[in-house]
């Protein structure tokens, strides 16, 4: 176990180093003179040189690289050009909102998967089952930003049932639409995985035993088959956490949800390179760490899994 954790954490270090290197290369490809940008358009040559010196831009590239690594390891992601505060502060301020949204999405996703998947398996081949298959394909093809926009238009604007995006009190009213937009399509997808697992398990011997001792069909499904069938779904959902975080960038932008995804979007609109890069870096490393958590979760819920 300890050996496994050390191995995986070393893997994260390698990934983080790679991510940092790539972002450093991207930053150094920024066209134009960064010092001129920071000093302002009317600065004198001497001021520009001073700014260049204070930013360390007059040093050789490889020294800049190691300084960049060192700064990032200390948690310093640089100064935002548009927000007048360090990138780190901006991210920490927006992180709770992203976590709230992500948590709501995961809960809704699993609810959709559980209900639709179980029903589709119990009534295999029925109309409900076939519609479910279609919805799963639609779910992966539907552009999230468009679905969100349509939901906003119909539910929030036409019917005035919920607020038109943003963040406020009472939270559930603001949370519902963005969470549904992100959760329902992937929920349908997971429901198909659950259905396939259930159908396979329903042929197992222990299910026949349960049936033959006279247990009602729905009890057999709910009590005996479901707990085993749900494990792979949770595993896959856990492995998809990174994609979920990435997908939230779009959802947050559509609903003006003040999370880190929206922060990155605003960064692009304001040509704030440090802010965009900082957010990307932060999310990439978070995803690498989340993958370990997903592995551990797999081991906790499924005792057959041996990590190593």
């Amino acid at each position, binding site marked *: 176990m300890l050996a496994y954790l050390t191995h995986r954490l070393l*893997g994260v270090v390698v*990934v983080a180093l790679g991510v940092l290197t790539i972002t450093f290369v991207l930053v150094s490809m920024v066209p134009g003179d960064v010092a001129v940008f920071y000093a302002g358009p009317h600065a004198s040559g001497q001021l520009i040189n001073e700014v260049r010196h204070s930013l360390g831009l007059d040093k050789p590239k490889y020294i800049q690289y190691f300084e960049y690594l060192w700064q990032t390891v200390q948690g310093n992601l640089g100064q935002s050009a548009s927000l007048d505060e360090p990138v780190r502060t901006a991210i920490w301020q927006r992180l709770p909102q992203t976590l709230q949204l992500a948590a709501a999405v995961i809960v809704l996703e699993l609810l959709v998967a559980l209900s639709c998947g179980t029903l589709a398996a119990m009534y295999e081949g029925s109309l409900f089952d076939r519609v479910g298959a279609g919805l799963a394909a639609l779910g992966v093809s539907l552009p999230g930003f468009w679905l969100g926009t349509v939901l906003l*238009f119909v539910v929030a604007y036409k019917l005035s049932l919920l607020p038109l995006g943003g963040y406020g009190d009472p939270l559930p009213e603001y949370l519902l639409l963005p969470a549904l937009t992100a959760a329902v399509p992937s929920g349908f997808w997971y429901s198909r995985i659950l259905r396939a697992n259930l159908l396979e398990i329903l042929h197992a011997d222990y299910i026949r035993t349960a049936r033959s001792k006279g247990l009602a069909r729905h009890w057999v499904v709910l009590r005996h088959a479901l707990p085993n069938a749900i494990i792979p779904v949770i595993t896959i959902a856990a492995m998809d956490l990174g994609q979920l975080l990435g997908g939230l960038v779009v959802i947050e932008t559509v609903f003006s949800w003040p999370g880190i995804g929206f922060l990155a*979007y605003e960064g692009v609109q304001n040509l704030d390179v440090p802010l965009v890069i900082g957010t990307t870096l932060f999310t990439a490393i978070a995803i690498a760490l989340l993958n370990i958590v997903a592995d551990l979760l797999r081991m906790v819920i499924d005792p057959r899994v041996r990590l190593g």
Partner: protein
Amino acid sequence: MRHRELDEALLSAADRRQGTMARLLRQRVALVCLGIIGLFVLCAILAPVLAPHPPNYGYTNGLTLDGQPLGSSGTFLLGTDTTGRDVLSRLLFGARVSLTVGVLATLLQITLGLALGAISGYYGGWAEIVITRLVDIMLAFPVVLLGLTAAAVFTPSVTTTILVIAATQWMYMARVVYSMVLSLKEWQFVEAARAIGVRDWRIVWRHILPHLGPVVISYSTLGIGVSILLEATLSYLNAGVPQPTASWGAMISAGLTYYRVDPALVLYPGISLTVVVLAFTLVGDGLTKALRARS
């Protein structure tokens, strides 16, 4: 790797060639979707002929007197957008952008995935370590965020969009190819080829890569759909294809400002996008099924 699948792929090589298309065409849904894709490709190629107006020209009679977009009429079949441009023409030219980005980004990611996957699977050693690590690193980047970063650093263009999509998608192909090559190279025909002195690159090219055909085909179909979706998403976030080029994603984001007056501006490109991506997804699924089925 799933050995059963591999066996199937190898054993059925001969009868698959005749059967795959027939099996695909027997699936009604896939057939309809194939038709939709054909229509989409035609629209994209013939856009300059089919479009009733130039896509980027803002007509002065294309706006109401107080400067709002027009609904559909005889001159502008699907109405005009916020700057008086013809929506139908922009939809047709948008199909062009979608198809170009979808196909080129997929070609690029498949090539990268095949090359890196085959090298790491066949040679092992350092190449394997470096490439698997690179896959891990790139998988940590969320697509959209890397797209936003690229947009902040470079000037957004069709080329940048293609590169970003390929850079964030090749790892999936590379992983599949890697594991398939890993088991393929243990087969006797590879050993035989090596025994008679065939060079490495030739073994990979002539003896291993042909077995990856089915995987590559179904993967490419799905990949085009995903790439089209990503292009639209990036363009929606102003980080993809720049204005004034017609792109479905950018059309949706531009139409948003007028959603009260003219919700159709958001509706048309959104529906086109969903239908096309869905068609690629379902044909990809159908192909996977047709290639795997060997009853």
